[in-house]
């Protein structure tokens, strides 16, 4: 992107609600407790028979009953990724106390996804193959569409403002947060429900990512398979779930007496179109996103007290991400604590950025940094402070969360503690 013109009079954007459902918890609170405790949510795949696949482990959501959560009839008309989105968005709105019905056209929804309705695609294709065209369901198309997390959340909550799904691979929900914040800054909306949803634990997508050599094959030891920054990392662990945040114009949030959980103070994106799949060597694009986000926020590296890394647990990602942090943070790189919560949740693809933003909001609120678990063998090329294995108490003024997509998107978001800029 061209460098953004910083408007000193722009509206401030705060987070007033968070929601999540993932492998380590079915609410934002549950997931946070598990993250602080250093719990892995990775298990052998139960969603389908994974026999014969190279990678047979995943971060599955556990004990989720869609019929109970959303209603029997409604849930059957929603792909799993849209079900997750509704659950997370409802939680975020409940926590925020935002009365959407009071001004529905000024509230928008952006829920990103990397893939869309994969289970629907596979079951529809299977129905066609086995029973012919007449066996394809009337709900096949409306369940398949990639905007159906965003669309159904809007329908469920009654938001009538702008609505679309960023589908920028693993940066999708980070884009949703950043673009949603921009809409509020620019006066295009007063509040936005933003986030991401993904349900990729299907035979086709596990096989697809496997064929790229992207997934961990530590099948006999699932809890230790996701080990970002550790020398023994061998690929990411596919995971499912959703996360959502309620963003609001700060003045309006304060006027209605909302509890401010954090403030979104910086957002920047860069794209490595010249380097498909692999991040750019030296982490140049990612570093530039971090630097631009700090410029956007008006902070310097030493103001950042925590980084939630992209940290997928692939050999190349963490090597380049470490280089990128060093490039962007300079001398401060050695002292900023960094963790990858993917070590516990697995990689939620298009929902990862939002889930990690939810964790980052909690780190700011309570002054606890979630760990990177499974750190046993340091990688000499990854020599920063990754908060190994145990959570750490530390007051955080500002925190950065990074997302890098498979197509080469780099998104950096900077959040500030609620009282940091009072």
């Amino acid at each position, binding site marked *: 992107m061209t460098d953004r*013109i910083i408007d000193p009079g722009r509206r401030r954007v705060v987070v007033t609600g968070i929601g999540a459902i993932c492998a380590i918890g079915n609410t934002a609170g549950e997931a946070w407790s598990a993250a602080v405790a250093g719990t892995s949510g990775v298990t052998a795949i139960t969603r389908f028979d994974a026999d014969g696949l190279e990678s047979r482990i995943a971060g599955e959501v556990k004990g989720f009953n869609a019929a109970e959560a959303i209603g029997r009839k409604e849930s059957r008309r929603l792909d799993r990724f849209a079900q997750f989105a509704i659950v997370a968005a409802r939680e975020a709105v409940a926590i925020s106390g935002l009365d959407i019905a009071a001004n529905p056209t000024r509230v928008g929804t952006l829920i990103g996804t990397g893939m869309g309705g994969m289970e629907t695609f596979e079951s529809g294709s299977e129905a066609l193959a086995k029973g012919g065209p007449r066996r394809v369901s009337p709900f096949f198309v409306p369940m398949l569409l990639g905007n159906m997390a965003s669309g159904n959340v809007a329908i469920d909550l009654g938001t009538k403002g702008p609505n679309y799904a960023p589908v920028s691979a693993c940066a999708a929900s980070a884009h949703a947060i950043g673009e949603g914040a921009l809409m509020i800054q620019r006066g295009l909306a007063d509040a936005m429900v933003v986030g991401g949803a993904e349900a990729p634990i299907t035979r086709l997508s596990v096989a697809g990512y496997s064929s790229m050599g992207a997934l961990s094959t530590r099948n006999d030891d699932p809890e230790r398979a996701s080990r970002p920054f550790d020398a023994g990392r061998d690929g990411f662990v596919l995971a499912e779930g959703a996360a959502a945040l309620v963003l609001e114009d700060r003045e309006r949030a304060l006027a209605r007496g909302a509890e401010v959980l954090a403030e979104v103070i910086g957002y920047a994106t860069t*794209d490595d179109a010249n380097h498909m799949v692999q991040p750019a060597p030296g982490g140049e694009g990612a570093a530039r996103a971090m630097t631009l986000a700090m410029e956007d926020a008006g902070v310097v590296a030493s103001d950042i007290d925590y980084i939630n890394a992209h940290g997928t647990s692939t050999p190349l990602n963490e090597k380049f991400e470490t280089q990128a942090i060093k490039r962007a943070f300079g001398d401060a790189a050695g002292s900023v604590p960094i963790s990858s919560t993917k070590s516990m949740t697995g990689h939620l693809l298009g929902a990862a950025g939002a889930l990690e933003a939810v964790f980052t909001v909690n780190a700011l609120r309570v002054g606890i940094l979630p760990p990177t678990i499974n750190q046993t063998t340091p990688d000499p090329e990854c020599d920063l402070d990754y908060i190994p294995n145990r959570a750490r108490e530390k007051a955080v003024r500002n925190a950065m969360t990074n997302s890098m997509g498979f197509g080469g998107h780099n998104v950096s978001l900077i959040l500030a503690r609620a009282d940091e800029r009072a």
Partner: protein
Amino acid sequence: MTDKTYPKVFITGIGTVTAVGRDYESTMDAVFAGRGGIQRMSFEADGGFKALVGHVPVALPARERLGWFARCASDEAIVAADLAHGSVDRVILGSALGQVVDDGWPIGMGAVDRIGMETARRYGRRDRSPAVRAINSSFVSGADAIGHGWQAIRFGEADCVLAGGVEAPITPAVLAGFTAMGAAAPVQGDPAAGIRPFDLHRDGCALGEGAAFLVLESARSATERDAEPLAELIGYGTASDAFHVTQLPDDGDGLLRAMADAMSVGGVQPGEVGYLNAHGTGTPMNDRIESLVIDRIFGPAEAQPWVSSTKPMTGHLLGASGAIEAAIAIAALRRMVAPVSLNLTTPDPECGVRIVAGASQPFERSITMSTSMGFGGNASALLFKRHIP
């Protein structure tokens, strides 16, 4: 910030590939001549399953079509804009379904992101990749991609944006899905007469495939390089009716607000719009609600624009439809002709708008509009103004 500080946004290049033409000029010639591209397609591997489709006549395997359409249309737009390599600083690509052919990787929306990145690699700066955004707002995706490009230029994030939509939905599973919903037109009879938007006997749509891309430029960028604008993009509005996944509310709330917002931000009065390219899918509900909204937005008869749906020619390009129809709305301004709405033989009294029936119709006003609606409750509108140098 007041409106005065926003830069003007010009369209300086267009590329399209559809069932009726492999490029923009041939597509527009067919559209304004009223030549339809709908045919009956039979899938022998699936028991002779048949559907009406707007098929691009090119012998490419199903898997390669999505990428090829995007490449054709984006190449053409760049050449038409006479852009040197490296001028584009943002690529925005919309698609509703993405890659729906189950043989290879990536699949689903991941393929759209990949195509966006490939497009950026072809046209972006060598030293710094353009920003790339892949989006999905169902059948509004193409219109929103263009609208987001307009916003990026207005808010100073970009000077030169390549924005558009792509779709390759002609697969047995997707066609069977639309058929099962009751949204697909019946396959019996003359395919050319099968899609009849606003007609009393309309009974469904035909899926089309293809892509359309527009080059959007700030006035500064266009002036600096002495580019000739094809039109000015003066307004974009978007809204969600949050009503139902596939049904529209009786008052057409989302579309109504999207159109009103576009006109308000563009400073456009109802009587100034000469032609409206409607979403006009040819399904009973869509055309009825859309007519009601158009009637309400424009008010008195003398303020109503000419209205047509060009989907009987191209088919419904889903996530690309908003982009191809924006391209048609621009062509209408350049020709000062509203393209015909094919197959309107028995007007529906519930569709009481000024449909271009029989043959394309000259008009004199200097603004055109394109509207899109999608599953999930999305609606958007784009407004174009004639550029007089």
